[in-house]
């Protein structure tokens, strides 16, 4: 746990969740492996992130390295599925993961891809305590895995520089999301190992907005991410937030 000399603080991390992902770490970059669902979701998530970041910071996505000069934190970076694209677009990226097994996998892959990314085996709280500040904080598909959602959200807010943008995506808690995410994804399609998600930890959009506001951030946008079984693709939806959704919030 101490390979980088940085001890993980664990106030909000549920140790059982960390162990689960550590077991999967080596498979991160196989688009047909265990993380296939994330690979499938990734273009849709990235479309949302790049559009919102470009809008917030006035960047032109057709220009080379449009995110040059932006400091970005990817919390729960895993194998780097979001960190690498953000670095490729020019952002200065810190990828943090409490699962130490992910860090060497992510580092190796970034180096092989010619990308410079600062991967750290630590929790978001460690960075906040160290006084680090970021223009963009990503908390994607993570809040449903933390033990103290409000504490986690407060930490995200603390990590943001004024005018900074925080992204939080998660899964809605309703009968449909139980059918899709637990029954469908884990038991029928076997996209995810059984037990990946705990439905009771899913968060409704209203609950998430309340968490965001309590942390002192202004929610500015939210969109659904919807899987179309005909095109076999994910796409963004203005209206359908019934299962997967993503939010953007600003620190004034």
């Amino acid at each position, binding site marked *: 746990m101490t390979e980088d000399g940085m001890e993980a603080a664990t106030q909000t991390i549920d140790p059982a969740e960390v162990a689960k992902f550590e077991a999967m770490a080596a498979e991160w970059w196989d688009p047909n492996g265990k993380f296939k669902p994330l690979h499938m979701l*990734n*273009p849709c998530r990235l479309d949302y992130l790049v559009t919102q970041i470009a809008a917030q910071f006035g960047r032109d996505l*057709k220009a080379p390295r449009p995110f040059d000069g932006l400091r970005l934190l990817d919390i729960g970076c895993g194998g780097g599925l979001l960190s690498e*694209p953000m*670095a490729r677009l020019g952002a200065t990226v810190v990828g943090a993961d409490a699962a130490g097994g992910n860090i060497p996998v992510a580092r190796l892959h970034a180096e*092989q*891809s*010619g990308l*410079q990314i600062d991967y750290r085996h630590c929790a978001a709280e460690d960075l906040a305590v160290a006084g680090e500040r970021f223009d963009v904080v990503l908390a994607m598909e993570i809040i449903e895995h933390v033990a103290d959602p409000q504490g986690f959200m407060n930490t995200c807010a603390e990590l943001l520089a004024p005018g900074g943008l925080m992204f939080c995506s998660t899964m809605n808690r309703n009968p449909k999301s139980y059918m899709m995410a637990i029954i469908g994804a884990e038991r029928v399609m076997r996209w995810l190992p059984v037990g990946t998600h705990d439905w009771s930890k899913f968060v409704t959009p209203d609950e998430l907005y309340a968490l965001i506001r309590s942390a002192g951030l202004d929610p500015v946008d939210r969109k659904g991410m919807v899987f179309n079984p005909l095109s076999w693709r994910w796409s963004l939806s203005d209206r359908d937030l019934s299962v997967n959704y993503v939010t953007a919030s600003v620190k004034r």
Partner: protein
Amino acid sequence: MDNRARRAILRAMTHDSDILIAGGGLNGPALALALAQSGLTVTVVDAAPARARAEDDFDGRAYALALASQKLLAAIGLWPMLATNAQPMLEVKASDGRPGEGAAPFFLHFDSRELDQTPVGYMLEDRFLYRAFLHAMEVDPKITLLTQTAVTAQEVVPGGIRVTLSDGSTRLVKLLVGADGRRSGVAERAGITREGWGYGQTALVAAIEHELPHQGIAQQFFMPNGPLAILPLPGNRSSIVWSETDANAKVISALSDEDFLAILRPRFGDFLGQIRLAGPRFSYPLNLTLAKSYVAPRVALIGDAAHGVHPIAGQGLNLGLRDVAALAEVLVEATRRGEDLGAPDVLDRYQGWRRFDSVSLALGMDTVNKLFSNDNPILRAGRDLGLGIVQAAGPLRRAFMRQAAGLSGPLPRLLQGRAI
């Protein structure tokens, strides 16, 4: 790992360009231009010398550009250089015929006015098209063109693919595109196998000068041994694509120009008055080849490298440009969201978009050709009736026209004439 070692790795990982395209014919340059205009760096490697491809002499070869292909050429800025030499095709007439009998009573008639857009397509000579591509590539700072150079080896390495060229040098790129034709070395080295079958037919291609104006009308006569297409070129000239059995074609190819014209005349008919040859004659054996996959790790195939089709409707180049438009859109969108251009999930999006379309079109043209290349009287009567029914059924005919014009299906933006 200390920082110095990490920096050394990063230095070693610098890509020479984003993409290397093997093949400098038409699809390769079209893709290079579309990508370069969206900010990607491209190396184009062509085994042929550049000037040989752009010589001024008319060699008789021409393309029937679908409307969608013309829109792509406009979107990548080439059309202003081409428009003055392009012959608009205002109508396409298809009919069933036998030598000496003229066209059957039922006529398949495609009129551009039915598509709400004029014309149906354009005829363009090879020399003008390639010259425009060459000029555009030379002035684009993001394109490096290496002529008289071939790819001799390729190796997938972490973060890219290392390509060895015939001069012994290597290039590290994110993606290698095989635009190197139906005997694609890129595909072969990537372990992509092909499926192919011959038609037992050969296409005889030549340019014809004729006495009367063609009025922009393209004709397709379905003859017992294969179709004869008469496609309008600027002035009183037309390009013919005459398909015959291999045995007949061999005999016809060996004939003198005078004897060739003597047997062409009854098939061609006299609707354009006197005819004579306006350039050299070419012959191409017709066969269909399909790559079993259009992608492999850090490799994508376009054009004939992916699918060599029967050229009965001039669809080879049109299909290739559809690959170009789809691949360019997939790669540019991936770039804008920060994805790795050579990642398997990015390449799968291209394959998923293109493979069904080209396989169905290839098989469809194969079926049409087999149905019409037959002199069985029952089939012939059925054909005449069938063509008449297609003619009578407006919506079906328009659907057929839209497919032939490349206007159906989910169209990549370049084929709609829009920037990516």
